[in-house]
């Protein structure tokens, strides 16, 4: 943190700040030097903070009216929808909010992948981010169980049964997770408890995520290190705050569109049928944001193999900073990697699509091809392309492409030029 020592002007402020330097922290946050060339893909950090707070606030209100009991949960949700003042609005914000949260986090993650934000010196920011993402998936999954509809019940059954694939102790672990011999009232009860806990864990990790970000400072679309503060940076407030506010408002318009006009389009109609352990739905599908992983799970004929592959798909991201051998961060200057990046985006979208389809015929083939490419991308493409690729010239500073209208070879230095 590179700013000058901050001294509050008022006496009371100085007295307090000497004992707890909150005002110094506030000053650091407003002055925080930020690259001035950040594009709109960088606004999703702020949007995600908004999503988290929205989920926590609406969730706390919902918990005041919700009853975590297998016989009462479905009815209590209908009570919220019908009898609680604006209960329908709060619940629809919360349920669609989960989808918007994931939409934003996927854009945020792919932003990082494109501009190499996970690379040195930002590996810890990336890893904390992945931990947040894992907790988000856990929270979302458990939250989806709470209304105790058919998809809640059967989704919970499918996902918890994955643990039974673990050799020797699998069945014991599953029973322990359930608190019963099947998904039942104890399962619902503990899921509610954990669903309430996890957002606050996420909040703690978000603080660490931002703290870790403020040590090296933001990456930027050019991907080069910049001097801070300098003519390449702007203070966070008002420049970035107003830009984040604008992007957030655009995001909120889309969010509101879902909440007010198609509040159930992202859910599954079967979840308005009360949970029935005796009737299995024709197709058990998770929420859209988990579908790529569901496709990977089902692409393997062996249960244990599928589970291992599915978890590997997430955990491989933790070692990404060390799989990527390129010293150039931004894909803007990496002509080959850039192509593979878009193939990965298409691959993940395709996996998401086939995850929603029955695991048979062409869908199974696509799921397998998609799964193989997903792993090839990280294990083979990233190390090799980073090693062989001839990258484009990189500007000396972020002001130059702005001033000269493009990265001129004369003012550019070459990095990683192995050719």
């Amino acid at each position, binding site marked *: 943190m590179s700013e000058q020592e901050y001294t509050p002007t008022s006496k009371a402020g100085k007295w307090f700040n000497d004992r707890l330097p909150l005002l110094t922290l506030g000053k650091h946050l407003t002055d925080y030097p930020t690259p001035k060339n950040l594009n709109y893909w960088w606004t999703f950090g702020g949007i995600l903070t908004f999503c988290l707070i929205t989920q926590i606030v609406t969730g706390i209100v919902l918990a005041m009216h919700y009853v975590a009991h297998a016989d009462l949960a479905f009815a209590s949700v209908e009570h919220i929808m019908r009898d609680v003042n604006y209960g329908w609005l709060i619940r629809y914000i919360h349920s669609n909010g989960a989808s918007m949260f994931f939409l934003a986090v996927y854009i945020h993650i792919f932003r990082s992948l494109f501009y190499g934000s996970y690379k040195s010196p930002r590996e810890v920011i990336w890893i904390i981010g992945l931990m947040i993402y894992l907790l988000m998936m856990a929270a979302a999954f458990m939250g989806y169980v709470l209304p105790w509809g058919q998809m809640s019940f059967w989704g919970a059954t499918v996902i918890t049964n994955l643990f039974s694939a673990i050799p020797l102790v699998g069945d014991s672990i599953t029973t322990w997770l359930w608190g019963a011999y099947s998904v039942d009232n104890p399962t619902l009860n503990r899921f509610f408890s954990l669903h309430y806990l996890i957002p606050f864990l996420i909040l703690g990790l978000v603080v660490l995520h931002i703290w870790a970000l403020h040590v090296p400072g933001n990456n930027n679309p050019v991907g080069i290190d910049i001097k801070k503060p300098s003519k390449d940076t702007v203070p966070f407030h008002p420049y970035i705050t107003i830009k984040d506010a604008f992007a957030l408002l655009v995001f*909120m318009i889309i969010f509101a569109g879902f909440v007010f006009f198609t509040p159930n389009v992202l859910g599954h109609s*079967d979840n308005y049928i009360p949970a029935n352990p005796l009737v299995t739905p024709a197709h058990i599908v998770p929420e859209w944001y988990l579908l790529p992983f569901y496709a990977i799970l089902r692409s393997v004929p062996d249960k244990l193999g599928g589970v291992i592959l599915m978890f590997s798909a997430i955990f491989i991201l933790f070692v990404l900073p060390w799989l990527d051998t390129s010293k150039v961060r931004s894909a803007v200057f990496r002509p080959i990697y850039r192509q593979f990046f878009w193939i990965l985006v298409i691959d993940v979208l395709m996996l998401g699509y086939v995850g929603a389809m029955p695991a048979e015929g062409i869908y199974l083939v696509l799921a397998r091809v998609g799964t193989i490419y997903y792993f090839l991308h990280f294990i083979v493409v990233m190390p090799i392309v980073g090693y062989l690729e001839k990258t484009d010239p990189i500007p000396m500073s972020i002001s130059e492409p702005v001033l000269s209208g493009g990265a001129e070879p004369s003012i550019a230095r070459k990095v990683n030029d192995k050719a």
Partner: protein
Amino acid sequence: MTKPRLRLFVLSFLLIISLKPLQSAEMVDPIKVDWSFKGLTGTFDRASLQRGFQVYKEVCASCHSMQYLSYRNLGEPGGPEFSEQEVKAIAASFEIEDGPDAQGEMFTRPGRPSDKFKSPYPNVQAATAANGGAYPPDMSVLVKARKGGANYIYSVLVGYEDPPPGVTLDDGVYYNKYMVGNKIKMPNNLMDGLVEYADGTESTVDQMAKDVTTFLAWAAEPELEERHKTGVKVIIYLILLTILVYLSMKKIWSRIDSEV
């Protein structure tokens, strides 16, 4: 992203999406009805809701419960909007079990607007047993609980047909063009002139199916009208605020030599 790459990206995505029709070849799509409650500003047809309630009460309610609705809902804004007297009279026409009283006995009394809709059977098992092993689902959220929503419910109601040759049906099973799997245990209960509408509308099967579906759509989403109205206001407000913030942003960023 350059233009050709964007095109490639969009094309691949469309290709993936277009695989969808391969999946469900035999399912018949439900009839598309131009419901008044569709769209961004859709509202319910008040008269249709009142007629639909009549169909529900006289036909459906003998087997189907609507346990999440209260009689008072019938008089609330955005619904059938029966008058206070009408709601009280409707509620009072049902005998509701209450209690226990001071002696520990259960007793019945005339319904009040605050009571939930009376269910035809005491529990799911009784309802299942009385209907040939098929539970007539609770209809409170039925429209939201079926893929295709109101269109699907309406289609099933008018979709009864003689089974095509080669299809044999067990006793108490009926053939329905739109029902998933084509076999339904609910008989075709609607026939022309079955109910006598208070407002004089001719009670054709189609009319009754539309009215009762409208009623069920409201029952599943009683907040729909308020949601639409609030939504329009919220979005207009957000757009205005977005414009103001955009102009402020341009102004602030004009202080430095950088694009935003």
